[in-house]
């Protein structure tokens, strides 16, 4: 038997409410780029954390280069030759690149030596980076390079990358792939975690597919189609895009020349945002996260009231400085990206969470009205109605918000806002971390709302989702918003180029920059 670099057999990890890994087996050969494919919540991240020693499995066996190993912590993993680049970077913003890398290394080296080794490694793999720059001046693509260099300095035999392209433009993804192929050619193994099919087919030489904690297939992705891979991943085929008519009504939201310096030193300043959403249409905003989407949504929802009043207009009314409650009274409802802690209070019941944005269960007359008396019975009825209508799997109106899965809580929150009959609904990352069934349901609900004449603004990182939902599409980059693209004009390569902020350039130049 040829010796596997990594061999997992029957790895099992149980959490109180869920089995994250159920008898998972995985075999990675030397020099192989091995994809682990699965939807959000399929158990990929848990499995990687087990390999990296960050999580202890309840059962199963790990062999590394043929030896049974018990990896107790990431230090041991690194000593064995396993390195990991996490989806969320762990860098100190105020330190330089070299200092950040130094922190994670053997104490024997001096800072000057580390700086030299970074420069060497960077030039060896074409990972262009200046070791002396402070991390907060780097873009996300550059931060990822720092993380990769940090991982490479330990000279790993196995490199784990967790969703490495979620923060990259399509052009930066291509550059990353070149580096990864070079690493594999040196005989290093790479575990590549992703749920993006075309990337896996372009890059990987082997693929293990997971669904709800179990392995559902092992294949060579180069022999597969998107359809066959996605069938393995979600157990069904992705829906076809439907052609539909687009007859928008009057403008509901008009943002004109919105400029807003960020109140967070590491945030993004909004630089002259123009966007209009009309009744009966869905407008999408694409872009890599961290390009001002968060700041824009704060300004639109009223969580940030520093905008000039006339910069944000809701059906001819200047609302720039109204608070969220006042904007809701005018018909603006918002579903934020963070469901627990922002969209819902984790420890409170679903019924009580209605009170964040809905006032129907409050007494409106007399002394009780003045006191803001809660009618608990009405509140529970209201919650039960949403639970039934949106097929939320929950223990009832009294179930705490944090007891629901991501998808079910999202269905409840979307339902909460849709049932308020908004004039304008803003949704951020509507299906982030949501299982396939729930995602389809949420998208259908948003489209139904559009057909009923509501204006809908969707901010998302998932391009496929935006192409499915949107009638018009903008791209956000570095605090600016591109002109609108119609549904017909929008395609992946064009939006990809625009994600780097290149929409002002003539087409010729864009093509050049993209190549």
């Amino acid at each position, binding site marked *: 038997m040829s010796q596997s670099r990594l061999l997992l057999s029957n790895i099992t990890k149980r959490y*109180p*409410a869920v089995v994250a890994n159920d008898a998972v087996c995985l075999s990675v050969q030397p020099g192989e780029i091995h994809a682990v494919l699965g939807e959000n919540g399929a158990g990929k991240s848990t499995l990687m954390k087990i390999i990296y020693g960050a999580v202890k499995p309840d059962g199963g*066996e790990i062999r590394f280069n043929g030896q*049974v190993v*018990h990896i107790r912590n990431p230090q041991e993993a690194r000593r064995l030759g396993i390195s990991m680049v996490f989806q969320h970077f762990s860098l100190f913003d105020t330190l330089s690149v070299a200092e950040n890398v130094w922190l994670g290394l053997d104490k024997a080296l001096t800072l000057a030596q580390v700086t030299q080794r970074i420069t060497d490694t960077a030039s060896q793999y074409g990972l262009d980076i200046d070791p002396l720059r402070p991390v907060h001046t780097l873009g996300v693509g550059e931060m990822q390079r720092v993380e990769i260099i940090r991982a490479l300095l330990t000279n790993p035999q196995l490199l784990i990358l967790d969703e490495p392209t979620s923060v990259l433009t399509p052009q930066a993804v291509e550059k990353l792939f070149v580096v990864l192929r070079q690493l594999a050619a040196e005989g290093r193994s790479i575990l590549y975690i992703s749920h993006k099919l075309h990337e896996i087919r372009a890059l990987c030489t082997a693929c293990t597919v997971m669904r709800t904690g179990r392995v559902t297939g092992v294949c060579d992705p180069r022999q597969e189609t998107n359809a066959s891979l996605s069938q393995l991943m979600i157990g069904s085929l992705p829906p076809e895009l439907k052609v539909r008519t687009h007859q928008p009504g009057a403008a509901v939201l008009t943002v004109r020349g919105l400029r807003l310096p960020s109140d967070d030193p590491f945030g993004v300043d909004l630089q002259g945002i123009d966007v209009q959403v009309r009744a009966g249409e869905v407008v999408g905003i694409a872009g890599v996260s961290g390009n001002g989407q968060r700041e824009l949504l704060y300004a639109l*929802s*009223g*969580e940030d009231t520093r905008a000039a009043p006339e910069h944000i207009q809701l059906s001819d009314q200047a609302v720039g400085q109204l*608070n*969220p*409650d*006042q904007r*809701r009274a005018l018909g603006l409802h*918002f579903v*934020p990206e*963070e469901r627990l*802690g*922002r*969209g*819902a*209070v*984790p*420890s*409170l019941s679903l019924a*009580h969470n209605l*009170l*964040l*944005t809905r*006032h129907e269960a*409050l007494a409106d007359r007399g002394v009780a009205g003045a*006191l*803001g*008396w*809660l009618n*608990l019975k009405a509140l529970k009825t209201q919650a039960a109605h949403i639970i039934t209508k949106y097929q939320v799997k929950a223990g009832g109106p009294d179930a*705490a918000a944090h*007891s629901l899965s991501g998808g079910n809580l999202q269905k409840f929150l979307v339902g909460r806002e849709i049932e308020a009959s908004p004039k304008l609904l803003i949704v951020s990352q509507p299906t982030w971390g949501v299982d396939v069934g729930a995602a389809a349901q949420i998208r259908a609900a948003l489209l139904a709302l559009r057909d009923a004449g509501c204006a809908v603004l969707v901010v998302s990182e998932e391009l496929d989702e935006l192409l499915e939902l949107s009638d018009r599409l903008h791209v956000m980059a570095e605090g600016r918003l591109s002109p609108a693209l119609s549904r017909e004009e929008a395609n992946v390569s064009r939006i990809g180029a625009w994600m780097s902020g290149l929409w002002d350039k003539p087409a010729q130049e864009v093509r050049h920059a993209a190549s």
Partner: protein
Amino acid sequence: MLRLEPRAQPSTLWRYASPLLALTITVVLGVILFVALGKDPVRGLQVFFWEPIKSVYALSELMVKATPLLLIALGLAVCFRSNVWNIGAEGQFVMGAVFAAGVALTADAHTGAGFWVLILLAGVVGGMVWAGITAFLRDRFHANEILVSLMLVYVAIMMLNFLVYGPWKDPLGYNFPQTKTFDAITQIPKLITGTRVNVGVLMALAGVGALWVFLFRTHAGFAQQVGGLAPDAARYAGFSSRKALWLALLVSGGAAGLAGALEVAGPLRQLTPFVPAGYGFAAIIVAFVGRLHPVGMVLSAVLMSMFYIGGELAQSRLGLPRSLTGVFQGLLLFTLLACDTLMQYRVRWVSLPRAVHAEEAL
């Protein structure tokens, strides 16, 4: 070996059982403590848990001590539930007493019968002013309310000392640092003749009802608590964090000030350097042991009051230092925090992992 496993849902059973288990452990530790000190543990427990309830008079004294504890704890519950960490209730209590004494000292033979209402109002204002300083500094300059409120306790005590050693000292008081005894008309109406129990008890119980309604039946109370549970959700909903801060501190300052006024115009009858008896700090324990729940805090206030009386009795009956009160208060809080682990985790007996055998098999 024993292992703690996280629960999917916090246990409802242990939410209520935890304080009882904590009390049991405290008693057991108390017994060990008495034995170690060479005292009869049965006699010791008697002093703490039987003597305070054995007669009507003993019960009345229990209420006298429980009233300020409960009043202060009610206010603190509003603070703690909204993530405002007011540690300075003791200072607000003292300032309430000072303001109330300032009004009470103006009373003379011509004063009307309802004058005590004015005294109590002055106490409320005093507590509010003192807590308002903390609210202002946090609101305007983002000063940490834990430090500010705590330091203001010592400022309040020094102001009290300045007054009783200086301008307000009783000229006929043989140079003792104390004001003159207040005029009889200022006496807070008593509930039971022959005891020291006054209408303060009724006010505290009314406060229990009012807090329950506010927390669990009004939108304002809901908004107040969301700010503590999930600040981002409060911002998303449009609930003002500034309003929550001011409301929390003014309510708790007012409640502590009222307790101070009731104390000085009730049992004490004059302002002395011994007004600060630690009620403001003990009330923090009362609030947490009572789960920040209005009814729970009634029980914990009575319990804490027993510790106060027990400590005093232990001094006279057993010849033990009065600091025993503090020891019991600390033990109770400590064991409660430990027992609360059981709400989030379950204890399970697991056999040792068999990793060793797997390696031997190689």
